[in-house]
C-alpha cells in the first residue's frame, strides 16, 4: 500500500499520532467493512426470501441445489485467486477442466468394461476404474497448469496471451479425444449416483469437497508461506526476487495449483453432470474471474481473499435462482446479474479508496 503524504497539513503543528493498536471497536468495524460483501449476499438472500412465495426460495433443498451448482465455480475461483494475486490471469481453466474431464472420463469408461457393456449401462470394473479416472483427471489438470506456468516464466509472455492459447489448445484436444461430442457413454454410477448425487449427513458430497478445499485454501493463503509469497510476488515481483525468493518457480507452482483445482473441478463436473462437452465450459473462465473480482481480489495483484472469491461465486448463482423463482424473464436475469456485478465491484473500490485515505 503506498504511503500518501497529506499536503494540506504540511507546515501546521504535528498532530498526535493515531494509536497503532486498534481498539476492539475499530477492529470489529474494520472486519465489518471488509465483510460487507457477505452482508450484501445476505441482503440478496433476505430480499428473495421476502419477495417470493413462501416455501420456494428459502428451503433447504433449494439452497442446497444452489450450493451444489456453485461448487465447481468455487474450486475454479480458488485456483484463479492465487493466480490473480500474483498479478497474473488464467483464461484456460475452463479448457483444462474440459480436457481433464475427457481424459478421466475416457479412462473410467475404458477400464470399466468393454464399449458394448458401457453403452448398455454396465460397468463391471468400475470399482477400480473410477479412482484411477479421478487420479487421471487431477494429474491432467495439474500438468496443464505446469505447462501454463512454464510457458509464462520461460517464454516471458503475458499470462493473458499464454492462457488464451492453452484455452484453445485444451478445448481442441479434448474435442479431438472424444470425437467432438460427448463421451461415448455416461460415467459409471459409482461416481455419479454414489458421489455426485450422493448425500453425506443430508448434504450433497460435492459441497463437502468444495467446502474442505475452501478451508484449506484459505488457511494456506493467509497463514502459510506459500500464500504470503504469492501476495509478495503480486505486489512487487522485482522486490520479491531480490529477497532471494525463486519467483519463477513460485509462479509455476501457482499456475499448477490452478490446474490442480481445475482437475478436481473436472471430477465434480463428471460426477454431477455424468458427461461433458466443450460447449459447457466456454465461459468457465469468466465465471471464475468474475467471482474472484467480486470477492475483492485486485486484478493488479498483491491483495486477495479466498473467502471473498467463494462469496463472489455465490452472488450470481443466488441472483439467478431467485430471479427464476420470481418468474423474471431469463433475458432480464442476464441484465440484472451483470449490473449487480458492476455495482458490487464499484462499491468495493469505493470502500477501498476510503480506507486507504
Amino acid at each position, binding site marked *: 500500500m503506498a504511503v500518501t503524504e497529506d499536503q494540506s497539513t504540511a507546515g501546521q503543528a504535528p498532530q498526535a499520532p493515531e494509536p497503532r493498536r486498534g481498539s476492539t471497536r475499530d477492529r470489529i468495524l474494520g472486519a465489518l467493512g471488509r465483510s460487507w460483501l457477505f452482508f450484501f449476499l445476505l441482503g440478496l438472500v433476505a430480499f428473495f426470501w421476502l419477495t417470493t412465495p413462501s416455501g420456494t426460495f428459502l428451503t433447504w433443498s433449494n439452497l442446497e441445489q*444452489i450450493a451444489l451448482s456453485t461448487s465447481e465455480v468455487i474450486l475454479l475461483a480458488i485456483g484463479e485467486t492465487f493466480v490473480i494475486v500474483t498479478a497474473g490471469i488464467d483464461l484456460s481453466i475452463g479448457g483444462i477442466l474440459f480436457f481433464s474431464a475427457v481424459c478421466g472420463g475416457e479412462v473410467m469408461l475404458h477400464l470399466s468394461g468393454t464399449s458394448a457393456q458401457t453403452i448398455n449401462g454396465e460397468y463391471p470394473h468400475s470399482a477400480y476404474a473410477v479412482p484411477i479416472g479421478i487420479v487421471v483427471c487431477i494429474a491432467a489438470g495439474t500438468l496443464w497448469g505446469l505447462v501454463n506456468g512454464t510457458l509464462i516464466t520461460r517464454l516471458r509472455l503475458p499470462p493473458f496471451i499464454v492462457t488464451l492459447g492453452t484455452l484453445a489448445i485444451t478445448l481442441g484436444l479434448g474435442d479431438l479425444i472424444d470425437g467432438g461430442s460427448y463421451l461415448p457413454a455416461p460415467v459409471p454410477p459409482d461416481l455419479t449416483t454414489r458421489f455426485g448425487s450422493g448425500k453425506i449427513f443430508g448434504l450433497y458430497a460435492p459441497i463437502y469437497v468444495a467446502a474442505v478445499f475452501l478451508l484449506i485454501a484459505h488457511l494456506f493463503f493467509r497463514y502459510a508461506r506459500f500464500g504470503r509469497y504469492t501476495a509478495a510476488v503480486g505486489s512487487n515481483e522485482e522486490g520479491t526476487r531480490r529477497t532471494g525468493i525463486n519467483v519463477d518457480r513460485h509462479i509455476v507452482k501457482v499456475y499448477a495449483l490452478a490446474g490442480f483445482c481445475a482437475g478436481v473441478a473436472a471430477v465434480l463436473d463428471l460426477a454431477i453432470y455424468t458427461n461433458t462437452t466443450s460447449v459447457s465450459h466456454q465461459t468457465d473462465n469468466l465465471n471464475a474471474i468474475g467471482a474472484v473480482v467480486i470477492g475483492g481480489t485486485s486484478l493488479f495483484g498483491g491483495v486477495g481473499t479466498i473467502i471473498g472469491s467463494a462469496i463472489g461465486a455465490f452472488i450470481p448463482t443466488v441472483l439467478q435462482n431467485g430471479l427464476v423463482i420470481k418468474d423474471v424473464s431469463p433475458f432480464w436475469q442476464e441484465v440484472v446479474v451483470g449490473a*449487480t456485478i458492476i455495482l458490487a465491484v464499484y462499491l468495493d473500490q469505493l*470502500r477501498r479508496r476510503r480506507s486507504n485515505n
Partner: protein
Amino acid sequence: MSRRLIVSLVALTVVAAALASSAALGAGAAKAPTAQKANYTIYLVAGIASDAFYLTMNKGAQAEAKKLGNVKVVFTGSPAAFSPNTQIPYLNGAIARKPNAILIAPTDKTALIAPIQRAINAGIPVATVDTFITKPIAFTNISTDNLAGGRAAADALVKAIGGSGDVAAISVNPGISTTDQRAQGFAQELKKYPKVHYLGIQYCNDDQTKASNQTSALISAHPNLKGIFAMNVVSGNGVTTAVKAKGKSGVVKLVEFDAGPPQVQALKAGTIDALVAQYPYGIGQQGVFEAYQYITGHKAGIAKHYGTGSAIITRANVNNPAYKKYLYTP
C-alpha cells in the same frame, strides 16, 4: 467518518440491489391462485432460451394455455448455451417454485436424469419435449419424428436435383439423438433412388467455418455433386457460404433442417431449395395439453410418446397459409 460510510454503504447496496431487481421485474411476483377456479402453472424449460425453435414452442404453449383458460405457462431456460451446466440451475429454480407440471427439453440424455427425478420426487410431473432422456421417468415425450424428417429431406433433395447425381450430408456431432436420427432416415430413404449416389456424412461440430470448408472440399473432389443435406442451421449456413464462394449456386441444391426467419429468407432468395420444418408450435401446444390432462386426473389416456410431424417447405408453398404454421416465429 469512515464507520458511518461503511454502514451506509452496506445499507445502500442492499437497497440498491432490491431496487435494481424490482425495477427489472415489472410484474414479476406470482399472484396466489384465485378462489373461483383452480389455476395451474406449468414451467417450460427450454434447451436454450435464445433459439427460434424454443421461442416458437413457447408461442404454441402460450396459445394452448390461453385456450384452456386457467393455465399459466412460464418460459425459462438459459439464453447462453445449450448445455446441462447452464440448464440445470434454471430447472432447479422451476422445481423450487413447485409448479403443477414441468415441460423440459433436456440438453443431455443422462445428465438431466437425476434433476428430473428430483422434480418427480417433489411431486411435480415432468414431460420431455424435443429431446429425451434415456430413463423413462417422464410421463410423456413429445418430439419431432426425426427419422421421418430425414426421409422427407431425402425425398425433397432428390426432387430438387432432378433424380440423379451425387449427394452428401453435413451434420453436427455424432451422438446427438435428433441429428443422428435425421441422418439415419436420410440414408435409409436414399436407397430407394438407384440413380442417386450418397457420398456419406461429415461432422462439422456445429462450426459454420468447418462446414464451409468441408463443403468446398466436397465440391472440388466430386464434380458430379448435385445436392447437400445440412442437418441444422449452423451447418446450413456454412454450406451456403461455400456453395456461393465456389460459384455453384443453383447447381448444388441445398436442403436444410429448421425453418427460422433467416432460413425462410434464404429459401425465398434462392440460396436454399427446401426446408424441413419441424413443428415446435405444435410441440408446445401438445405439451401443455398433455400436462393439463395429467394434472386434472386424466392420466390413463396419455401415451408415452407423441411424434409430431415435419413439413417440407419450398419456394412453391412458402406463402401457402396451410404451411404457415410450420414456420418458426420467435
